[in-house]
């Protein structure tokens, strides 16, 4: 195919990605080092009451001719990064950088929001991963062993946690684990009492359980497909050589599935880094946050797009670091000419 017609064919797709992915990302970098605030002015308000005139002094936003509030924007450098990373503490002390500190609204406590969110995101990612792979593998082995006519129904039912709308799934789990829900009741029958959404550890555990439940079907189906192509002659040869069931699994099946395990791991790293809905639904950020939740929260609750941009840029740096192995792997495969 000639380069000219190649460019014509990919044109619409590339234009859309440039316009709605690349450009907004660049804009994020720009926004993250800026701050805009409404210009305020002091005004004297005279009120005529039946008891005489009353004067009050109050602040209001300056308006331009069209009646819109005038914004004054300025370059604030890495201020918001410092804020999100909780390095702002020294700014409040004498001797800290005083210049730009005044432009940012005071009152936020200087805790390390981002690292807290990143820590939980990483815990979530790396705790769920072995369970996803392990349970997915066991299910794949199991389904491989049952009779043909049961497989279809089983796979259909297993797909449910994976394709269901995440926010709906998280809500369903929340209702299931409410203090007056089904699971606490069943647990109380065996003498366990947990108020799932009232403590940090159990809320986090719930998010992790959701994560495992949600991704296991994906691992299961990919590994199940892989099992169909395990070389039968190698398995037979191993049987003749007197290999046990376990040895065949360990030395024939697992090595064959290794590329798929790597594939699932990489996809899971990407998707787990984006964990959002369960954090939003199950804790509403009360005990724990994730990096994606943090940006969303700063933007919608604190209504501060500049600080949110700083959090977004830090999030992006995180994913790039996490992605390097994936990019190297794909780069090599493409160079080999797949």
């Amino acid at each position, binding site marked *: 195919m000639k380069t000219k017609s190649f460019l014509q064919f990919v044109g619409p797709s590339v234009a859309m990605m440039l*316009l709605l*992915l690349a450009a907004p990302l660049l804009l994020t970098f720009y926004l993250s080092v800026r701050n805009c605030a409404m210009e305020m002015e002091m005004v004297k308000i005279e009120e005529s009451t039946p008891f005489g005139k009353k004067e009050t002094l109050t602040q209001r936003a300056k308006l331009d001719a069209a009646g819109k509030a005038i914004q004054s924007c300025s370059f604030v450098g890495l201020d918001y990064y410092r804020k999100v990373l909780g390095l702002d503490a020294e700014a409040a002390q004498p001797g800290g950088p005083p210049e730009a500190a005044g432009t940012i609204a005071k009152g936020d406590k200087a805790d390390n929001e981002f690292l807290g969110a990143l820590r939980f995101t990483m815990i979530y990612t790396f705790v769920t991963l072995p369970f996803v792979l392990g349970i997915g593998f066991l299910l794949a082995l199991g389904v491989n062993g049952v009779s043909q006519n049961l497989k279809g129904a089983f796979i259909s039912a297993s797909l449910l946690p994976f394709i269901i709308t995440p926010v709906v799934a998280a809500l369903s789990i929340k209702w299931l684990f409410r203090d007056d829900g089904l699971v606490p009741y069943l647990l109380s029958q065996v003498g366990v009492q947990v108020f799932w959404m009232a403590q940090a550890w159990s809320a986090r555990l719930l998010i992790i359980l959701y994560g495992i439940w949600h991704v296991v079907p994906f691992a299961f189906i990919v590994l199940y497909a892989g099992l169909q192509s395990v070389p039968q002659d190698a398995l037979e040869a191993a049987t003749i050589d007197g290999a046990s069931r376990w040895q065949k699994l360990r030395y024939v099946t697992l090595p064959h599935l290794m590329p798929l395990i790597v594939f699932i791991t990489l996809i899971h790293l990407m998707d787990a880094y984006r964990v959002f809905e369960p954090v939003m639904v199950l804790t509403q950020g009360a005990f724990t946050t994730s990096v994606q939740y943090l940006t969303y929260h700063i933007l919608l609750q604190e209504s501060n797009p500049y600080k949110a941009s700083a959090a977004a*840029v830090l999030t992006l740096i995180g994913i790039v670091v996490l992605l390097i192995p994936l990019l190297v792997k794909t780069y090599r495969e493409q160079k080999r000419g797949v």
Partner: protein
Amino acid sequence: MGKRPLSLSILLYGGLVFWLVIASLPVVWTAIISFRQYLDAFSSPVKWVAPFTMENYTRLWIEKEFYRNFLNTALVTVFTVTISLTVGCLAAYALSRYRGSLGFWLLMVALMFRAIPHSSLLPSFFTLFDALGIRNTYFTLIFVLVAINQPFTIWMLRSFFINIPNELDEAALVDGCTRFQAFRRVIIPVMWPGVITTGLFSFLLAYNDFLLSSALTSGDKMTMTAAIANSISAESETLLMQGVAGAVSITIPLIILVVIFQKQIVGGLTQGAVKG
């Protein structure tokens, strides 16, 4: 395979049944309590049997006009899938036939974009769309979802296009077709299975999206997932029960989808894996 010992068989079937219960419990239990009054739905001890009522559904769909949200979701997903596939097929076809290094770099960049946490885009989206006055519109949400879907769509479609032999379109070119005619008349007809599978995943991405839909729509433009956000921290009992009914309403189309398209979904999931 040798003969399986009985103990292993029991473990196997036991394990599979246990997983099925876990996999379906949240959905099944939500469906059960959606037909109950609040006091029967949440109680301690749990009620296994309770009077049946459709009240939550009628409240939600008629009084709360959930059908509007349903229609919004239908509109947004139909356009998102159609545009995604049209634009994606063109690009993926070119990527599967072009030998230059430009194509390779485009795929790598698309892979990077696929990994972007969507909330990172929101501050810019808010700023841009507010400045242009197009924040709460179907148009904006559709194009945002299409763009978000593009990286995934072109990767997946490309893996299907690559399996179609070059000779097919080369022959058409020799017969005097232009590139575009060869694409439309020769390639697309044999591409339907791939297009359907990719379309399914494109649909799931658009239909299941919560973050962007809830941030970019409000009022009468809200999609179903955006509308159900109200019930996340619902205090009132009726509002909560409407959320339960809403959750079930959102899930039903997905269950129908799995039943009809199970083969394609499984095929799509393994497609990327087998190709690497």
